């Protein structure tokens, strides 16, 4: 895994910036915000809520959270789909606005711009969607389109 050294971003919580989501690696979505903004995005997601998940293929439990890039409490784009998706989607690289973060072990987290349009397991669950709606980050219209995979533009 190519990454810069980890940093303790919250007490006992470590974050790793993975380089393959910044170096145009073919199959990886890419960050469009800088590393400090990525850190803020993770902290926002971590404090919003952590969802335990089970990986069926590898038979292990891990934690996930979802983050947003906020500017003046407005959701802004934070990344782009991978070059691989560009080929599939008729030379289009979509802007992405939700990040997904997973912990490996011992509160070591990493994350990347998520694409719930394509990958249902990257869709933030109902509990997170409700928090975002109640905080006013998304309208009911945007939430509905997000969950139906119709929202790809802010």
């Amino acid at each position, binding site marked *: 895994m190519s990454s810069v050294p980890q940093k303790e971003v919250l007490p006992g919580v470590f974050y790793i910036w993975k380089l393959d989501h910044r170096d145009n690696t073919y199959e990886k979505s890419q960050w469009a915000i800088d590393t400090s903004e990525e850190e803020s995005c993770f902290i926002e997601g971590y404090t919003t809520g952590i969802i335990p998940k089970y990986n069926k293929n590898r038979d292990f439990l891990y934690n996930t959270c979802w983050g947003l890039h906020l500017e003046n409490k407005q959701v802004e784009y934070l990344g782009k789909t991978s070059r691989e998706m560009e080929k599939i989607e008729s030379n289009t690289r979509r802007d992405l606005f939700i990040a997904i973060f997973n912990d490996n072990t011992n509160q070591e987290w990493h994350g990347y711009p998520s694409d719930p349009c394509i990958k249902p397991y990257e869709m933030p669950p109902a509990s997170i969607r409700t928090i975002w709606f109640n905080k006013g980050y998304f309208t009911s219209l945007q939430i509905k389109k997000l969950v139906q*995979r119709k929202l790809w533009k802010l």
Partner: protein
Amino acid sequence: MEALKLIVPGSYYDNQIYANRLYLWNLDDSITTVDWNGLLESITIPEHLKFALRCAFLESNILYNKKLQAVFQDREVVKLLKKKFQELAKYSIDISQEQLQKFVIRRQDNPFVFPHADSSAYQGNIYVGDESGVKVARCEENEIYPISKNAKRLCDAPALNMAAANQSLALAGGSEGLFVCKLDQEAKQLRDLQPVIKEDCNQARWLFSSLFSSSFFNEGFMADFVSERAESNGRTEDTNKQIKLLKSSEIFKHKIRYGIGKPLFTWGVEDKICTATATSVEVVQYNPEKFEPTERFKTLGLVKHKRFTDAAIIGADSALFGYVIEYDDGLLVINSAPQNGWETNWLEGEPVSWKVFPKSEYYSNQLHVVYDDHLCIHSFNQDYFVNQEQKLVGIKYSEEVPDYKLLAAQASVA
């Protein structure tokens, strides 16, 4: 003919209409159930328009009745009915908050997941789905809670969109494909869950006992349930149902240039399969009783509409009254009755949700659109006077349940 409009005030996330009740999903994770008949009967309009109001919002099946077709041969009768609908269209039917409250049966906690992806009502049950699966709850007329407080998990398959029919629930599972939940007699328990189409699926719809899967990431696929006809004891019977998977390009006989954000979407409902582009809708008629491919999939033609836009098509559906196409900035309704070209209604503004009810007995002429601060119910009534056998726009009204449909239902329950 102008569509009728009824406005229900309030901010909602979703809604359903079923068996004389209107269900409204509020933004605070509660559901309000409204006595729809009571509310409609409380509307003050002149006596001579009450029949038109009843057909428009309470019982669409009255004017679709086959026996009335003989009456419709009389042009004066048709003229009179059309005049009544046109006169009714001049009344803006805005329900006040006070009027609505009088007919609220109950406001209850939402027993389903919220915010969800889609809802459906079928055989006394309401189904609600999202990427985590589907929940079901009974909606009983005589219970204290209009929707049972105990919603049960029906399945874990993702459901971004649902379509109920044939004792089954078709689920659009995104990248996991299209699934069919076979339901028990009361349609509240799962009997079996089957993956039918493995390709990406954003919208699932029934074409009689076959299925169509629409997606932003592929051209669209149809699971055509093909029966083999066999002679048995002197009787012809449909046996050995097999699924034949067809790409849209095989149905339309040309390349379908799909892609996210493109002005193109392919879908199919009952007897019509459509592909919409920026300027037109191409229509193929599906006839499951025919076995010859050119008769089973008959090219009907192109419907050119006047609204040109290069905006992305993000959804589409079919009703008896026409086709509804969802763009980034509004809904385009193409009506089933041509008048100097195809009559269209442009409904400006992004809706929170919208739905049609082509399988409903009473509400098949309605389009429900939820906006930020109200629910707008459109009623289209031109289709009663359209020859159902020859129509290019909108699905064909069928009063009888065809044998193959019954067979499919029996097969799916078995």
